[in-house]
């Protein structure tokens, strides 16, 4: 590969990537993942070859996740052991997921590969996203928004004792068999290689299956993202596909965002993390569902669509994806500003009372 495969960088391109990186980082700092589903298509829309976009996204992901994980570890929100255990099995999932992707692309071409990714998005986000949204609404209505307790599934998993496979995790103060964590990590990696956001499985799995709180799960996801990101970067960099300029511009914006997102988690109630995740998942689902007819038509599985219709569907889909990220960022910033204002008011009331 020679440098001709790397695009010419214009100032406007840089600003665009910086801003998308910032918003993606903000969401990642708060919910542990996100942003990648917009960044890869955003780079491709600038003329970056698909594989270079994926590689450069990976290369910005691991330093971003590292900074985010370290920041949230300072707040006592990270279970490093859980993150590493899940991260290593996720790496295996990434390798298998990438292999599936390559096989589908070889067999059915770009349209087949895009259809596979979109259908995976719709099915997984439909199932997991609706579950997360339902749970968030239930928590809000019941008034139990301060404290989170492990659900029935998590309690059962924590009670299962399989000798020789048990491991203690500080975040739940319990022992879990690695026979449960390995498939969850694997599924996270498989999803990361398919739709670029493993956290859409990883975070809900940690909350609902392993029994971590939303805060711990979203922070621990950053450790998983770091492990997957560095593995992915080495894989792609070995073949020379990383455009380090693109990766570092996105990183420039995303590190501003991830710091702010991490700070935001200390001001909000735990259900907000699930709310942001649920809203993003459901909006992305709509975005991907809209574009499915285009790929079905390209594969001759339905009547051909006019070129104009295809163009519209693709652009509307991309706009809704940007909207998903913007909605998530909007909720985070609003919650951060509100939480901070309340905290400052509380502090000044306490100081006034103390001096009185």
């Amino acid at each position, binding site marked *: *590969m*020679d*440098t001709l*495969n*790397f695009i010419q*960088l214009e100032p406007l391109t840089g600003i665009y990537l910086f801003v998308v990186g910032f918003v993606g980082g903000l969401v990642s700092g708060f919910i542990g993942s996100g942003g990648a589903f917009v960044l890869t298509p955003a780079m491709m829309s600038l003329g970056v070859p698909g594989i270079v976009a994926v590689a450069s996204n990976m*290369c*910005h992901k*691991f*330093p*971003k996740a*590292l*900074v985010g994980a*370290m*920041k949230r570890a*300072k*707040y006592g929100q990270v279970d490093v052991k859980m993150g590493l255990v899940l991260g290593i099995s996720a790496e295996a999932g990434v390798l298998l997921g990438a292999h599936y992707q390559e096989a589908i692309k070889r067999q059915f071409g770009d349209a087949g590969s895009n259809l596979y990714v979109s259908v995976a998005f719709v099915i997984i986000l439909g199932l997991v996203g609706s579950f997360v949204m339902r749970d968030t609404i239930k928590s809000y209505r019941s008034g139990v928004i301060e404290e989170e307790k492990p659900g029935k599934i998590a309690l059962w998993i924590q009670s299962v004792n399989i000798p020789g496979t048990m491991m203690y995790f500080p975040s739940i103060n319990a022992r879990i068999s690695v026979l449960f964590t390995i498939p969850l990590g694997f599924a996270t990696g498989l999803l990361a290689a398919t739709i670029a956001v493993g956290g859409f499985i990883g975070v809900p799995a940690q909350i609902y299956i392993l029994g971590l709180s939303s805060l711990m799960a979203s922070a621990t996801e950053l450790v998983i993202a770091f492990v997957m990101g*560095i593995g992915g*970067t*080495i894989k792609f*960099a*070995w*073949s*020379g*596909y*990383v*455009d*380090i*300029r693109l*990766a*570092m511009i996105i*990183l*420039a914006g995303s*590190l*501003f965002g*991830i*710091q*702010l997102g*991490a*700070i935001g988690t*200390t*001001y909000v109630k735990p259900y907000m993390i699930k709310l942001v995740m649920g809203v993003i998942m459901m909006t992305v689902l709509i975005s991907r569902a809209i574009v499915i007819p285009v790929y079905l038509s390209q594969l001759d599985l339905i009547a051909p669509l006019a070129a104009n219709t295809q163009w519209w569907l693709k652009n509307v889909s991309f706009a809704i994806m940007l909207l998903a990220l913007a909605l998530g960022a909007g909720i985070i910033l609003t919650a951060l500003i509100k*939480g*901070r204002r309340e*905290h*400052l008011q509380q*502090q000044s009331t306490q100081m006034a009372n103390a001096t009185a």
Partner: protein
Amino acid sequence: MASPSESAASHLKAIGWGVLSIALYLLLFIYDKEVLELSAKGKWYFVFPVVVAFLFSVVHGNFTGEFWRSLGIRAKR
């Protein structure tokens, strides 16, 4: 809330890390052709983008952390 001396230290740190960060980005774009050639070589040259990413994460990560801190945006204690 931060004391005035804490705030001044934070401003100084933000400026220091900021200058280093800008210097790194300037180097990256001044030598972009060489940088791209090195990463495009692949194989054991994979170390290059990985090390660059780590370096930027330390320098720019410290800068962004101090940046928000100097603006008074800190985690709730």
